[in-house]
């Protein structure tokens, strides 16, 4: 029987990574500063993109 502990630990670590990113992204969004990359969305980072007119 191969131990599942290393694989489960790996999955938990990936979830920790998600939580850490969300904490950081939320902080940036709360600042509202475009200089820091606030876009109004947690998973985008280019404030210039929304300013470009749609073709």
């Amino acid at each position, binding site marked *: 029987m191969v131990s599942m502990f290393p694989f489960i630990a790996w999955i938990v670590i990936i979830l920790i*990574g998600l939580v850490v990113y969300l904490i950081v992204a939320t902080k940036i969004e709360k600042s509202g500063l475009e200089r*820091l990359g606030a876009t109004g969305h947690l998973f985008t*980072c280019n404030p210039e993109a929304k300013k470009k007119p749609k073709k």
Partner: protein
Amino acid sequence: MTTKSIIYLVVFVIYFGFIIITSIQSSKKVETMSDFTTGGNKMGLLLGVGTSMATWLSVASVMGVPGNIYSRGVCAVFGWVGGWFLATGLMPLVAYKIRRPEVPSRTFPEFMRTRYDPYTEKSPIQIFSAVIELVGYFVFSYIQIQGFGIVFSTLTGVPYAIACLFFMVLLIFTCMGGFESVAATDTLNACLILVGVIAAMVAVLTECGGIGAIFQNFATTTAPTTVGGEPLVAGILGTNWGTLGASVCISYFLSNCFGSTVAPHWVSRFMAPRNAKTAALQMFLVMVALIAVFVPLITIGMGGKMLMPSLPEGVTSDYMFPRLIMDHINPVLGALALTAICAAAVSTANSMLLHCSTSLIYDIKRVLKGGEASEEEDAKTTKQLRVTILSLGVIAVICAIGQFSLLADGFTYVYGAFGSMFFASIWLGLYVKRMNKEAAFASMIVGLIAYIYCMVAGSPFGLPAFIVSCGLSLVAAVVGILVGKKPPLEAYESYFSDHVSAKTIEIAHKIRKDVV
């Protein structure tokens, strides 16, 4: 030369061509010294993900991870893969803070000066950090060249020294264009690594008869790692801590994790993106993308034990993957896998050489020389950076032709040393306003001495070496904070506030020697 070798060589020539064309195109974009060192702090998300992913994937991961799983068991998934993933998962916390200032630093030693010693022109902390960076990354570059040379010569029959020279040509082409060129070729390399390891995984799964058979074999095998060695205890490769034991495995995990979060090349990587959120998001996406690379690498390591129960005498487990390619994978898939190893070596070594070069010229020579900033001076520095990369590349190749060592272990030692030295000065520097110059120096020196002591004489009470050295380093930092003076506002303001004083911005420009 066999048909197999010819196929390998043809695929390689195509790869060489791609890399050289991409490098030449990217190098044309370099206009200023800032472009050369950090891509002008304007790197976009996709390029950032590509270059960070490729930097993660060195020969130590592409060859070392399957090798460690093969010889030490599934515990390597926790010790190495888990450690690296936790590091990547925590990196947004560092990336956000490093890229937060309106005028970010260009290099890691420059960050150390900005944070701890902003008013000293010839800053000892900047020079000290640059020297450590220079030595550490030279070792890294050398390990990459060596790994590539051995693999390439074994598989194609080309002499080892010639293989190293080939590698040098590739390195020079990718580095001469500076950061942008390194980032562009890295992105290409990241795609190749992904394709290569997936091709190898498919071949291994087909040969073994599926994942069930691989797990079954791994749980029962007693075959020694090398022919003639002591047989393994049945099932040990499938246990929580494998052949390493809990203490050693946890130590590797912590070294790989915390050592990586504060490794100077990562801190520098966080300065390049266009804003703080890009810096954080790129690391999160890298972590997700790396799953697609590490699942194949783990499968290759476990499947290797079934296809090749023991390695020939004198062959270390780092070379299990190349052996597998040679003996068990069809030449076309093998050539792709081989290109992945090469791409991993190139993508890591070129960033390391760039760091060596910027440490020497930007952070040591430029700082010691002093004087006023000017456009002529910046152009001269960019030229010197290119010449230094060339010279360091030649020296690294000469060194690589000489010696051998275990790849993943070598990496872990340097990461462990970086972690012990810089953990307190980076993490506390970014999250504790009171962290000062005295504390930073004390933590770096105590961390380095403690780590070397643990490596040479063994850790006290059998504790993981990293816990001992990093713990002592943190204690030294706390003593430094209590005993030393409060740092000036200009040292920490830009890492803690979104709006800073004009004086802080003026100091940041002065440290960077920006031409106004």
